[in-house]
């Protein structure tokens, strides 16, 4: 199993996830330094960046000392040289969901962070172009939040009256 890299900020909580991936739970302030230390330790590729809205699932299991917040930004890093993955989960609160952008470390997170901003409304400090990417620019709300409705078309059981 992976260990924390040598340059990592002190006090980052970790946990062995399923299939032995290492999961790290940095504070907001440690997040950027932690990712940078992983990058310098041979994690060349940021495979994935997404977010989860834990509004309706408050009792999730976290290591002791991590304060659960509504949102969680999940980053999956991949090391080609070691053939390992590592997962970084950083909490973002309900009132001002904001984390640092990884754009200066992995430029490839640009589109992924825009997607998270678009669908969850989480802000990324230092992102060059934080606009919506999948929804139209004038869309209201952030669809993947748990308090955003699914939207339904009422089912028509009888033949609808034709257009007059």
């Amino acid at each position, binding site marked *: 199993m992976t260990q924390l890299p040598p340059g990592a900020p002190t006090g980052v909580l970790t946990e062995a996830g*399923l299939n032995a991936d290492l999961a790290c739970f940095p504070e907001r302030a440690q997040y950027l330094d932690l990712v940078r230390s992983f990058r310098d330790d041979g994690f060349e590729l940021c495979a994935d960046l997404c977010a989860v809205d834990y509004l309706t699932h408050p009792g999730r299991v976290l290591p002791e000392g991590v304060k659960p917040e509504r949102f969680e930004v999940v980053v999956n890093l991949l090391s080609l040289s070691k053939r390992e993955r590592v997962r970084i989960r950083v909490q973002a609160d309900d009132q001002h969901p904001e984390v640092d952008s990884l754009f200066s470390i992995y430029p490839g997170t640009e589109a992924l962070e825009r997607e998270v901003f678009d669908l969850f409304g989480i802000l990324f400090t230092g992102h060059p172009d934080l606009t919506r990417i999948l929804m139209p*620019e004038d869309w209201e709300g952030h669809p993947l939040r748990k308090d955003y409705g699914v939207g339904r078309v009422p089912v028509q059981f009888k033949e609808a009256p034709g257009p007059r």
Partner: protein
Amino acid sequence: MSDLTIRETERPDLLVGETSEGAQELKRRALTPPTELRREVGAILEVDGRVLDPSSIDIERSDDETMIINMGPAHPSTHGVLRLMLELDGEIVLRVKPVVGYLHTGMEKTGEELSYVQGATNVTRMDYLSPVINELNYSLAVEKLLGIEIPARATWIRMMMSELNRISSHLVWMATNGMDLGSTSMMIYGLRERELILAFFEKTAGLRLNLNYVRPGGVAADLPDGWEDDVLVICDTILERTYEYDQLLTGQPIFRDRMVGVGAILAEEALALGVTGPVLRSTGVPWDLRRTMPYLAYDDVEFDVIVGTYGDNFDRFAIRLNEIRESIRIIRQCIERMPRGDYRSQDPKVTPPPRARIDESMEALIHHFKLFTEGFHVPTGEVYSAVESPRGELGCYLVSDGGPKPYRIHVRAPSFVNLQAIPLLMRGGFLSDAVPIISTIDPVLGEVDR
């Protein structure tokens, strides 16, 4: 008086149309922040002081000398509803920005409303050229959370079907790439060969495109009688035809002029941008999840990872052509070594009772009914699993709250990430080269927009 005020404005708005995308579009240079401007001209940003791409970028050019044009979303060579906004100086591309989202149907949101049994029908529609591999990725993630073992035969069937699917996806790529470069024969040949595979899919799963064949717990049905002969015919025919493609394209001067040396990318740049799949392998990085992080039984079969050298369009073409041949090698081994046994897990938690039992047992009927109405419950947890799709690393991040529906399902779509390489690949090239560059990135817009 009014005439004068019009002349004094910076530029007439006559040629500018308003869309609802607004801020997502490519802006004039004066209105674009410097970091974003550097990104759009294709600079991989300075990473901790290391400038990967220095002075060749001309940021000081004034707006008057250039023209911003719009390509797509209904352009025939953008492989779907991809929209590119390009800033041109004559015929030279200076800046590019892909604008996506025209096919967004909220599939990740829909996935939260569907049970784990239904989920496969949802993900199979994301990357519509490689449905089996999408289902496989989803099923592997669910199975990891469930902690169940899959019978050997199911594993090998999955492997064979995903390799057939890889061939059909690469054949569509060969076809559309040929068409983009004016070779309509290649388009017809590619789609003709793909039809062989789709016919086999129809025979096996009942459907040609969105199969819903690989499901959590195994596969939907056993292979049909006489499948060995069908698959052997497919292997022999397509392997023979790949040499015809060689004759048609590989050495052809016009094709080589458009492909060799066009749209080159370095390994360092590709890694920084998160690019995976044939685009990454074309730069010489031997990274193929089937080999480097094996899943299914890929560590039991022999195949080569095809790697390029220059990272240009031609390398990406050659990699895909040779991957078809490698997939055929894997399929032949699957035919020889296909184990006997169950094609799905016998764990009653995820697998419904056999049809014959339902007629004679009330409990079996109830069990069947519960599985298909409520679905099975998956233990609390989160998991990320990834497979090698024809376009790169296809990942699935799944969060379960212990219920019968995923709490969150996120699909890491390789095309979505690979599209970010477009500004870098097109910068400084001709507008006509933009078309083969989009093509060799091979985006599937269903997967980009999800």
